[in-house]
């Protein structure tokens, strides 16, 4: 019996389209739009100016604040513009726009002996490489691996519980070696924490591959997890893998656990071993409206339009393009937003799949949202009071403890936009 958490629900995972497709390189774009802030924390200041030549791997934005992560350009070129551009979330962010050189000189990186590096040096290299959580949250990794408590477990999040996405799945299959090496480094930084790979059982091939490679690795194991959404949510994953419950409003360090996404850990390896900055990632292009679905390695800052142009565009019946996963990602109204560190998927969805609630009904108290809420909240009451503007009551029923997994709005037979109400309450 695979381990799991309480409540949550089975959502069709639609991964068949891309789970067997090896990662392909995407042709080089002609421009990069690199948001200066791709992390949670203090904003970066730019380190380049318009007209300046930049080399591949050059740092273009950084900050002195403790919670921040620098950004780099993955390709050489000339800075054309620095200004507000639309990003994945729909918000305007300061971006560095680079005209990419058609002829690229590949950046050269030398391999260091990792075992000789001090913990301080490892953390410094992680920070310098601009590594942030690549599962979507974007929390700076060097901060996360410097917790105030001792750490018993480092959990590697390979759940990929969001439907459609297969980028982490392919990474675990194709770059398992580097990922495990990265985990070894982080385990060392965390004082020898035991490493657990949490992987959902719909990725049996990845589970087998990693199990085999871990056979002679002490202190590391794979824990197969039940296929259930949101298995990859931090607190739910910790509970499933270790049985520990993170107290409400507290961080995983409270129960001596650190969680890292598998792609992040692979990036850590590159950063520590080669001092290679985080300038590329795997993105799953999929959905019924995608002409050439697949897993693509893209340079951070590649415009969404370039990815679609290179893959045959989208079908004409696409009504929604989502960046990120279908449950927590962001709908795009233009194709201008760049692919960033935290974006694992681009979905071209057709009208038969998408949720839309222009004319939702009142709550009929069917209780489905309550049955499935992974946090044990009462989305029915939160939604009702949020809609009425009675924010205190909405908070009493748990609005502030919601992490917006989206199950409530997914199951609601009245098609109520419950997550929107929650966001509304949080902002009030």
């Amino acid at each position: 019996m695979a381990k799991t958490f309480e409540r949550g629900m089975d959502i069709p995972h639609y991964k068949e389209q891309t789970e067997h497709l090896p990662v392909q390189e995407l042709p080089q774009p002609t421009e990069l739009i690199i948001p200066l802030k791709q992390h949670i924390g203090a904003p970066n200041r730019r380190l380049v100016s318009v007209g300046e030549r930049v080399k591949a791997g050059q740092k273009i934005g950084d900050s002195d604040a403790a919670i921040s992560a620098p950004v780099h350009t993955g390709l050489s070129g000339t800075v054309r513009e620095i200004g507000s551009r639309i990003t994945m979330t729909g918000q305007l962010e300061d971006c560095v726009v680079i005209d990419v050189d058609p002829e690229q000189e590949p950046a050269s990186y030398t391999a260091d002996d990792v075992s000789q590096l001090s913990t301080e040096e490892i953390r410094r290299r992680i920070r310098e490489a601009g590594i942030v959580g690549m599962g979507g949250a974007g929390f700076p990794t060097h901060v996360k691996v410097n917790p105030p408590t001792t750490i018993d477990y480092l959990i590697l999040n390979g759940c990929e519980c969001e439907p459609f996405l297969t980028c982490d799945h392919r990474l675990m299959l194709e770059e398992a070696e580097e990922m495990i090496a990265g985990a070894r480094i982080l385990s060392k930084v965390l004082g020898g924490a035991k490493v657990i790979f949490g992987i959902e059982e719909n990725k049996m091939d990845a589970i087998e591959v990693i199990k085999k490679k871990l056979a002679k690795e002490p202190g590391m194991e794979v824990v197969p997890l039940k296929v259930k959404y949101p298995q990859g949510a931090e607190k739910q994953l910790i509970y499933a893998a270790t049985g520990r419950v993170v107290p409400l409003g507290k961080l995983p360090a409270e129960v001596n656990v650190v969680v890292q996404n598998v792609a992040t850990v692979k990036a850590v390896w590159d950063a520590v071993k080669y001092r290679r900055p985080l300038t590329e990632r795997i993105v799953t292009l999929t959905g019924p409206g995608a002409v050439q679905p697949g897993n693509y390695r893209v340079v951070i800052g590649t415009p969404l339009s370039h990815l679609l142009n290179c893959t045959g565009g989208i079908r004409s019946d696409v009504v929604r393009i989502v960046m990120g996963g279908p449950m927590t990602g962001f709908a795009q109204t233009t194709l201008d937003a760049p692919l960033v560190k935290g974006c694992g998927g681009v979905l071209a969805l057709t009208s038969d799949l998408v949720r839309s609630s222009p004319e939702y009904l009142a709550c009929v108290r069917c209780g489905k949202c309550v049955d499935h809420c992974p946090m044990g909240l009462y989305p029915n009451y939160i939604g009702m009071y949020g809609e009425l503007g009675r924010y205190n009551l909405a908070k009493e029923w748990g609005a502030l403890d919601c992490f917006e997994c989206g199950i409530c709005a997914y199951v609601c037979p009245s098609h109520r936009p419950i997550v929107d109400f929650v966001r509304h309450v949080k902002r009030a």
Partner: protein
Amino acid sequence: MGTDLNLQAASSPHLHAGDQVSTAMRDVTIALLPVTLVACYFFKFNVPFLIMVCVLTAMFTEVLFRRAMGKKPQLHDGSAILTGVLVALSFSAATPWWLASAATFIAVGFAKEYLGGLGWNRFNPALFGRVSVILFAPWLVYLNNEFFYWRVSFPGIDTVTQATPLTMLQMGLPLPNMGTFFIATQGGGIAESSALALILGGLYLLYKKHITWHIPVSMLATVFIGTALLGQHPVYHLLSGGLLLGAFYMATDWVTSPITKKGQIIFGVCIGIIVVVFRVLLAPTEGVAFAILIMNAFVPLIDRLTRRKKFGEEKAQLIKQTVSTGANVAVKS
């Protein structure tokens, strides 16, 4: 590319399970089909006629009230139709159509739409309408006199005057054979025609996951144990009167029952206790209707008292206040 894109601005989640309120309403209506057919066998055309009257009244009332309150009618959610069917089935086949129509008018108009529409009603609309015409019976005499010459009657209702099994039980009369009683009996309300058909419909709703076992089982078990303890015949109690209709179709109404499973069990047990008190100690009929309506009033309280722990919470906080009134959203659409 370059085609004219028409991308929707929308917020997450971008998928939907596909459930709809109207599907549930339709399925409950389908679940009532077996018992309706058995009733048609006994009471002939009187049954579809009464159902037709109630459904048309329900739809008319919804449109009337929503228009008057400045809202768009939402007949497509199917709740008006279901309420009409439920009201009709709770009457006996010999009921004059204007009485059933009046009950439906109260059910849809006052118990539901006036309070804000589907979702905002505190009491089960069908039961509220049904019980209202009992309580207002003295005033409805006028209605009876006015409409008497408009009465519609079809063959097949000559046997209705016989005592219902529940009254026979209470009066100590010899009871019909248990087997026939289970499969089909004439007497009482339309929906009391067949316990078997009601159970079949209930199983269909369980299978479709529109209801869970918690309310019906806790309610029926309580009545079974309660009547047995008081020296009555528990099986006859289970099979007679509106108990099965109430347990599977009325008490399980989403809007008017508690939201958590724990709350639902408390709700079911309390209804069961009240039913036993009504049936054994007080008036012989409509115990189930009153019991469910009484407990409907306690649903917000049950929800608050049974509040579960959040994931990672030490101890569930008690919610002190809850307000649910549709008045505030009356002009939403």
